[in-house]
């Protein structure tokens, strides 16, 4: 590689998690977001951000997701509109890397939301903890071929349990963002990654 990559802990990471009205990034709305930064390799809880997103009525929230997120449509009606929330997200991403669990889904939700509201998606560098789990499993197999017969479990909470991280009670967007940030710290160490490039 030609470009030097910064040491991993000199980069600011914004761990992000979305709660959505369904699983289809083309149709379902974003109903909540949680973000927390990692600076100098530590999670800064005091800077965390979380918000619900106002439902625009056109997209109904499915009954299943209401149960999953414990959100009721009324709460969502009072929340700030999507444009405003996206502005808050983008402002934060301006100074760092986006850290998500399963980027394929969340980034697609965010891209579409930007397109619909006429905002420009800032295209931050993305680090995906799911990729890191796969990498770590590959590394383990390389060191000891018998280590893992099966594909690793990619579920956030299953992966955390596998690495000895505690189970958390609530499952809202911010908790999941914190959970992702912690998992990232463990995986970073597991991979022995020294630069941002090693993590992408």
């Amino acid at each position, binding site marked *: 590689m030609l470009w030097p990559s910064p040491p991993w802990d000199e980069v600011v990471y914004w761990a992000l998690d979305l709660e959505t009205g369904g699983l289809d990034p083309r149709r379902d709305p974003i109903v909540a977001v949680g973000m927390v930064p990692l600076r100098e390799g530590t*999670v800064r*809880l005091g800077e965390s951000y979380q918000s619900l997103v106002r439902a625009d009525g056109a997209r109904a929230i499915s009954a299943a997701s209401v149960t999953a997120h414990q959100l009721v449509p009324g709460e969502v009606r009072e929340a700030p509109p999507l444009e405003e929330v996206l502005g808050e997200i983008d402002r934060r991403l301006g100074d760092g890397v986006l850290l998500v669990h399963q980027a394929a889904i969340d980034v697609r939700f965010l891209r579409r939301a930007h397109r619909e509201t006429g905002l420009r998606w800032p295209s931050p560098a993305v680090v995906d903890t799911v990729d890191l789990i796969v990498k770590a499993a590959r590394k383990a197999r390389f060191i000891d071929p018998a280590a893992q017969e099966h594909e690793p479990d990619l579920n956030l909470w299953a992966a955390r349990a596998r690495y*000895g*991280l*505690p189970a958390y009670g609530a499952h809202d967007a911010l908790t999941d963002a*914190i959970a992702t940030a912690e998992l990232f710290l*463990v995986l970073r160490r597991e991979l022995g990654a020294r630069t941002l490039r090693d993590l992408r």
Partner: protein
Amino acid sequence: MAALDPIAFLRATRPFGDLPAPLFERAAGSLEIAYFPAGARLAASGTVPLAHLYVIRKGAVRIERDGQMLQLLEEGEIFGYTSLITGKATLDVQVEEDLLAYRLPGAVFHELLTDARFASHFASGLAERLKHSLERAQVVTASADLGAAVETLVRRPPVRVGAGATVGEAARVMREHHVTSVLVETAPPGIVTDRDFRNKVLAEGLGPDTPVTRVYSAPLRTVPEKTAVYEAWQILLDTGVHHLPIARGGEILGVLTSSDLLRSAAQGPPAVLRSVERLGSREALPGYGGRVSEMASSLLAGGLDATVIAGFVARLNDALLTRILRWAEAELGPPPAPYAWIAFGSEGRMEQTLLTDQDNALVHGGDASCEPYFAALAERANTDLEAAGFPRCPGGYMAREHHAPLPEWEARFRGWIDDPKPQALLQAAIFFDFRKVHGALDLGPLEAVLARASKARVFLACMAKAALEFRPPPSLLMRLRGEEVDLKLHGISPIVFLARPYALEVGSTARNTLARLDAVVAAGLIGEDVRATLREAYRFLLGLRLREQARMLAEGKPPVNRVSLSALSSIERSRLKDSLRAIRDWQDTAAYHFKTDLF
């Protein structure tokens, strides 16, 4: 801040849960989450101190000094405060198991220290922390400042009379000034009190013209102005005097009476002593036990060390027993021979904090014909003690069964030393902690038998071996969580039982465990550093037990020795582990010293 799991965890961790809302918000708002893999070194002694206060969420950390592990800290435990408070890195901090930690920047920790309750959790003085915990538990209502200097209680300069004064003149001066004592300006000065008028003037039929110097006490027994109030109590209880002249250099500031000291703590030892002195009859005995346990709680709340409290309890119990035996003597007539009432166990060692089962016996200087008298005396005393709140001894070590002439006791003592079978060792362990509480009989011969034990290697080895059967369970040394610890079985007894053979070996006549350790150090058998650790461990365990038992009593439950670890703060848990570890180390040394593997 929202109900996030890390915040909830912090809230549930002592002492954060006690913080007032604004300070807790401050802590929550600056919380960081950090991860360190096993093997990482967070701080090295003599280098950069830690800049954060850490709360362990998951994993474990080893605290070391010169390569020696001092503590293993686990989930819910806190570290970094020593660095933050002293500004120095005095210890090595090494990650033992992958560590997920919540941490606060040092500056925020210092802000939180402005909260007195939070700060007291990190105070180095144990008494301070116990006092704090007790206040929280609301076991006691009153808490006096027992460490205050006696000079703060002095209300007026002393009243004096000349060296040539008569008792009549002295009495008039006392009446004028409404005082119960007066200083006599002799060289050196003396003191005369209202008790002297009663006991030495009136009772002896002396007239008002008697020179005061004929009935006074000189030289004065003074107490320095800076003496702590509780130390003054000890002097009062030990000497039996009721007036304490307070001195600054060569000058007398004033005279404190037992009533002055009584007012300084309504539930203090002087108050209990006074109630003992005023016991008119057996009917007044019930309630004594309750008063003593209230006193002990209140002294603990006042910040007093449990070992000091035990000293008070022993002195009061002794005063009570003397009273009880005097009643019995008055009823049965004078004893046919001199005798000695002896106490064993924790009472013998003066280590009792709450009243426990009776452990006592009677030694007399007569022959078999005296037995009926002493049997009756012992029967009455045992019954009275039970009424006062000392339960019967389930093992039957009570004077009503154990009364015998001195030579018989000597023979028993010798037998146990010469033939240390298990049953003999059990008896020796109990009876060798004997202490004479009351009576005119000299127990020198019994002490002489004990002195022989120092040469009896087999006996000492067997006694040490029996003591080593009380071990802190290995599982408790590392992981203390969600379990119960028996403070007596796993902590206090191992120290007490092992101090005994060591003290016998060096020929010490001390019975008190800390005094025994002192004697053993003086003889060079154990090091100063070992003693310091054991002493701290012993005090901590005794204090913890007293606090927990006082709480059980306050909740109307019978006091037991088992405590649940979840009831302790993280600092107490790590201190407990330290204490158990120190005990195990000492036991390993002792096994080698006594060569217990040969027996």
